[in-house]
């Protein structure tokens, strides 16, 4: 994975601290061209990996990328699935069964209920595979070397003790998409314990890592200890802690930690993209001069 990954929250009005900013972003990125322009700024800053949720609008972005193979030759996308609000809002309205009916492609689901015959439990993983395929459709022809499970699902499965489903995700993206599985989580130490116990070695885990300790469940010290002593491929996200830490301080902290392979950040303007990338290069020069 590259040292810097570019995120997509700013494109989809995801702002963890301000609903007003979130609306402003929604206005700013109304047109797909504004997203593409920002991705180009990131590429100019040397960032060639876009880590994005499987939001409907990403399909349009993929279309643009496919249409200019030369320009995007080195460009990679790390899909993060699912776009949970789509499902969450549907569950509120349709219930769990109704939502699966709506989103599982074809009449697979209908066939399960045929004649009122109870279906075999092994089919749940098939449903998951179908949902993954549905989410991956938009990325056809695009380089997606790592495919992530969004934190709301990773953490839900973690809390429910559904280790086998995490493992099944890991194996399926490898088998079907020749990609590595990544897991986004707000509970990194707990998740690492579970993945390791399930035999997944050196997993890719993307989690909140920031000087403020924001969304670092179990505490900042435990996270630092885990980074120091355990083997996994860490991606730091929410490094600015939603704005609670100044950019310089935030990047200095993250670059100073051991074992962080990549740093994920999103920004809306060319200046912010360049400034953040420069800060990372600067502090990497201080803390990791040999790399």
């Amino acid at each position: 994975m590259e040292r810097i990954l570019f995120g997509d929250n700013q494109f989809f009005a995801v702002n963890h601290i301000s609903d007003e900013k979130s609306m402003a972003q929604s206005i700013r990125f109304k047109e797909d061209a504004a997203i593409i322009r920002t991705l180009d700024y990131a590429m100019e800053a040397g960032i060639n990996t876009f880590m994005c949720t499987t939001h409907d609008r990403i399909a349009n972005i993929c279309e643009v990328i496919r249409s200019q193979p030369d320009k995007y030759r080195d460009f990679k996308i790390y899909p993060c699935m699912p776009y949970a609000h789509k499902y969450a809002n549907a569950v509120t309205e349709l219930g769990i069964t109704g939502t699966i009916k709506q989103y599982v492609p074809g009449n697979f689901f209908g066939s399960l209920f045929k004649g009122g015959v109870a279906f075999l439990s092994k089919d749940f993983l098939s449903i998951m595979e179908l949902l993954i395929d549905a989410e991956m459709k938009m990325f056809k022809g695009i380089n997606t070397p790592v495919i992530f499970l969004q934190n709301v699902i990773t953490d839900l499965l973690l809390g429910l003790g559904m280790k086998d489903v995490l493992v099944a995700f890991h194996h399926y993206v490898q088998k079907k998409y020749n990609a590595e599985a990544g897991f986004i989580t707000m509970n990194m130490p707990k998740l690492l314990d579970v993945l390791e116990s399930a035999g997944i070695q050196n997993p890719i885990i993307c989690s909140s890592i920031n000087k403020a300790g924001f969304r670092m469940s179990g505490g900042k010290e435990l996270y630092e200890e885990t980074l120091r002593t355990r083997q996994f491929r860490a991606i730091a996200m929410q490094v600015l802690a939603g704005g609670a830490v100044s950019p310089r301080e935030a990047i200095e902290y993250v670059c100073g930690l051991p074992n962080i392979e990549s740093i994920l950040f999103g920004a809306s303007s060319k200046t912010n993209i360049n400034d953040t990338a420069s800060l990372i290069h600067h502090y990497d020069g201080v803390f990791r001069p040999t790399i």
Partner: protein
Amino acid sequence: MVNVGLIGAGKMGISHLAILGAHPDVNVVGVCDTSKMVIEAMEKYSPFPCFTDYKKMLSQAKPDAVVVAVPTRFHASMVAELLQLGIHVFVEKPFCLKPEEGVELIRMAKEKKLVNQVGYHNKFVGTFTEVKKLLEAGAIGEIYHFMGQAYGPVVVKAKGDTWRSNPEEGGGCLMDYASHVIDLVNYLVSPVQSVQASMLKSVFSRNVDDAVFAMMQLQNGVSGLLSVNWSDDTFRKMTTSVTINGKKGKIVSDANELKVYFKDAACPAGYSRGWNVKYVTDLTPSVDYYLRGEEYSAQMDHFIKAVEGKVPNLLNSFESAAQTDNAISLIRKAQP
């Protein structure tokens, strides 16, 4: 360790179950749902004992406490049954369909000295707890007006019917969405005493309201407005906010951001004259396990600690939730 059972593994139930599953003081002794699909998935992939009949779960698993997350119309009878058996209860919001049902449950819980809590999670959101602190300290002077709002994209086009689209079963924006805002106003300012006027509008739904607007008066004499709409897809997810006007200042808060305006320099420590902005990131204590928001873990932790006798059973008691049920009923009656 507290032995906990869960009845109703829908959207909220599953979320509670994951939080319970990760809680160090909780032993999940049973999960019950009538959906065969959900129970079979749980049976196969989770470590929890599963049931399709809650009575069987109660008799076999013998929980100390039960989380009830079934459709609202079942709350009253199910909670009564649990209290009768001496089981502590956490029940999802809204509490009961009719205010009179709540009265009996409050009495039973008191008589049997059982912990009782309702899932109004906003009281565990850092910005709103800070608003509560400011108001209790009288920081913005005498309050004369409030505005409670919530918007989100739940029903954004005409669709088929579910229990949520049946008013008899607790469906609709007033019961499901507006209840959060009403409960927050009840808590932060004062419980709703009367409703001067209200409008319940259907935007896309056939049988239930998708939007609620009301003018209300609270027990402490303060009056204000309620504006809630779950058919607004300019919001990515549910967004709840309160604005409170006082004679010495004003508070505008949602779950992410708290803005406080002080007219003069006499204000609490950490604040100054003019606008002050604080973020939930600074106001929210971190939790041991996170899912969808610190507040969900914090409210369940509060319930478990109350069962263990480590904290008093004050926040989100049946009593406070019954006041919200009462306000819901007043809003319904005040329609033209």
